[in-house]
């Protein structure tokens, strides 16, 4: 790893339950991201994905460990890290423009009203909401609300964007359009993005790196999968790429079986050196790596060669 723009170093989160018992959601979690990278975290509910994101955002503090962003350990929230919430979290008593302006005027306190408004308008236009500036959130559809959430996050020109399942409450069509928008904006602005998702296809389309987490409690980051698809991939022809199914099957295999059995099968897993997986073409992978399961191998098995990056 040359450029560690974000480095999560050995964080843990524990909750004390009744009677002095502590529940460990995860511990000794190490994770790093380069500048301009788009990362997706996939894992089952309860593995602590949202907690990791909240710690990154500064909304939650780790029980142990530290998070370093751009060379500095974070303490609390920051305008450098914008959050797009799952439930969009718009202030319902403010208009679209009011919601975005609130963020803008929070970042640049000394700006006058006209400057704030003009800046907010730029980002409203960017997400394609021109003409709806004076509507209130209750008058908007779910997709439009999330667009406002994106505009609000982008308007403060953050160093990175944190997204907690931002599109999970949207219908498939709207989700697709918004994924396109987010990808376009992130590519154009070189934004570093960290996103939690349940949607494997969403991760494949958007992410440069996909972090796979095992089931909680006691969840660990099992592997980092590098997305082999070309950077100029499109949503419509994504599934035609020869590596698409290998990647998809690898992730689904992980979610279906390996996320449960990972800890038992990999006792020597080193959380500081999580294997970086390059998914290759099935013809080229070495079969000995895979579990001998002929029926699955006959179809696209999604075999992979874990290799530790150095």
């Amino acid at each position, binding site marked *: 790893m040359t450029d560690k723009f974000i480095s999560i170093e050995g964080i843990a989160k524990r909750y004390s339950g009744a009677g002095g018992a502590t529940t460990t959601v995860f511990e000794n979690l190490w994770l790093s991201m380069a500048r301009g990278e788009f990362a997706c975290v996939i894992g089952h509910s309860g593995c602590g994905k949202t907690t990791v994101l909240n710690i990154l955002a500064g*909304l939650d503090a780790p029980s142990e460990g530290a998070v370093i962003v751009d060379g500095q350990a974070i303490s609390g929230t920051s305008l450098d890290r*914008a959050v797009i919430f799952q439930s969009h*979290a718009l202030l319902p008593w403010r208009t679209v423009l009011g919601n975005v302006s609130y963020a803008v005027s929070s970042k640049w306190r000394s700006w006058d009203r006209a400057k704030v408004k003009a800046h907010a308008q730029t980002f409203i236009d960017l997400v394609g909401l021109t003409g709806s500036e004076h509507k209130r959130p209750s008058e908007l559809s779910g997709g439009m609300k999330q667009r406002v959430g994106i505009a609000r996050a982008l308007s403060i020109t953050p160093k990175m964007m944190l997204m907690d399942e931002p599109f999970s409450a949207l219908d498939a069509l709207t989700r697709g359009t918004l994924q396109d928008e987010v990808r376009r904006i992130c590519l154009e602005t070189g934004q570093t993005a960290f996103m939690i998702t349940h949607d494997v296809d969403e991760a494949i389309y958007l992410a440069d790196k996909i972090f796979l987490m095992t089931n909680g409690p006691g969840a660990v980051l099992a592997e980092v999968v590098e997305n082999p698809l070309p950077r100029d991939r499109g949503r419509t022809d994504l599934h035609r790429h020869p590596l698409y199914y290998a990647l998809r099957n690898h992730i689904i295999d992980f979610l279906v079986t390996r996320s449960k059995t990972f800890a038992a099968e990999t006792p020597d897993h080193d959380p500081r050196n999580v294997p970086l997986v390059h998914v290759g073409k099935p013809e080229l992978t070495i079969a000995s790596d895979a579990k001998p399961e002929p029926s699955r191998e006959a179809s696209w098995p999604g075999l992979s060669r874990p290799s530790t990056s150095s």
Partner: protein
Amino acid sequence: MSTSLRLRAGLVSIVLLAAFLGIWHLATRSTGTTTTMSPEYAKLMGLTATQGKSAMPGPLDVGAKLWEHLKRPFYDNGPNDKGLGIQLAYSIARVGTGYLLAVLVAIPLGFLIGMSPLLSKALDPFIQVLKPISPLAWMPLALYTIKDSSVSAIFVIFICSIWPMLLNTVFGVASVRKEWVNVARTLEVGTVRRAFTVILPAAAPTILTGMRISIGIAWLVIVAAEMLVGGTGIGYFVWNEWNNLSITNVIIAILLIGVVGMLLDQILARFTRMVTFPE
């Protein structure tokens, strides 16, 4: 559709009112038996005995008297004979003063309690004990310490209207959606600005609901308080007219208390609508 519903509802209301007035009128008609007696004795006995007139005034009597009052609402013929407008103004002024003082105390205090779990837990026993006390129970203590009957009445209004506002403010502030607070936190909005730009607007509908309950209670209590304190006000007027055995005036006062109470409630309802946001 909705206009026709409103029209029909209005019609039913008018029919009900007419029926009520009709029954009232029939029930208070002069139907009693009259006895013959010497004129001097008859003077003492009044119209009930001599003409069989009901002691309860009919709607026409009340209407005529009400018209008289409405024509001259602000006359002042000394301590026991003031116009209804003056009496109502005294009551509204007391309610307004006590209520505004309660707003000034309850809303900032409720904000503090709602935002601080420590204060919330520490003050809870006091609030729980003080809340169910009938406001009139404070009256002797207020009279003894304040030594002014009019200020005591204001104190009683203050103490009775503070609780619903305080509790609603605490509840409203404490139950502001976590995600809205998180938005402010991620934007590094300071505590004071957060209180005014996120928590206040989010809690405003709940706070206004508390204020609406309070104004209703304050208006209920002022009548009782003024009956005790005496001197001026619509509550005193009711009691004074009862001592005068003027049931007509008592009925008029009851009607006016209801109308003013409704107006106060409507004003607060309008404010509540102004701060309510659709989600």
